């Protein structure tokens, strides 16, 4: 059943997908930093307020994924920021996250060597995003 985009239900479903992924588990071995995703508001797309997704990831496991204010996500060790429609492109496989970062469509803040070292883990995490059925506010 589809869940509302970037809602608490979405966060819970996303966490389950990450923890189901054996690829993520092996690729993210040794990862011990928090990751924040900032989803910037796009009122014309019926996404009126920015949201922050805080991911507590540790050694191949998603310990917690929560949705709250953007400011919470901005405090994480790694922060990836993009408008709502860009995240939707990532979640629907229209935009590859690696390319998006190289093009500046997804803005990354954090230690670059670490994030590059875990490229496979971040790619697998993107795959997990695409497996969550989502109800998009601009498609109602």
């Amino acid at each position, binding site marked *: 059943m589809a869940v509302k985009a970037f809602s608490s239900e979405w966060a819970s479903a996303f966490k389950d997908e990450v923890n189901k992924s054996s690829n993520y588990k092996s690729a993210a071995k040794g990862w011990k930093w928090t990751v924040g995703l900032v989803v910037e508001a796009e009122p014309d797309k019926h996404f009126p307020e920015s949201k922050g997704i805080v991911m507590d990831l540790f050694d191949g496991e998603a310990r917690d994924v929560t949705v709250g204010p953007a400011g919470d996500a901005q405090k994480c060790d790694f922060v990836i920021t993009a408008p709502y429609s860009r995240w939707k492109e990532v979640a629907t496989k229209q935009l*590859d996250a*690696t*390319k998006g*970062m*190289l*093009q*500046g*469509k997804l*803005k*990354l*803040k*954090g*230690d*670059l*060597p*670490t994030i*590059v*070292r875990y*490229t496979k883990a971040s790619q697998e995490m993107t795959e997990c995003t695409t497996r969550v059925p989502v109800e998009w506010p601009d498609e109602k």
Partner: protein
Amino acid sequence: MHDAGPCRMARRKVTSDQHRLVEYADSEPSAFASMLGGLIEANVSSRPEKEHDFDSLVASVGMWVTDIDEGVTLDFMGGRLVVHNGLMAGRTITIRTDADTVMSLSNLKIGPLGLPVYYDAIGRGVAAKLLRGRLKIEGLLPNILTLNAVTRIFSVQ
């Protein structure tokens, strides 16, 4: 713009007249230029074994990412790097490949004698792309030592 993170100059001695390790030729560096420059700066600042290569390397290295149609030129000037948006004339080496392979190149392990490891999974993937023409390196043969030095500086492993 990408933020290369804290402690960029953590290890090197900093004096007021010292150049930054990495500078950008363009007033608005592309995201790709910022990312590569930031990656190299963080690598050299935090990994002592990369300093010798960085300090001695003089070469102009182009990198073109085929699936995003963007590239940069990395001008290594013996202890300083200037990053240009796009490909500039007079390059020593030019690497043309897709975004995934750029990430793989930066994940190559460095083995004995400072040589990139091509026998593990990532190395084999890179070698296969080279053989299939999905990774093209212009100027490879006469500049293999330069390429190895660039790989060592670029590698996060």
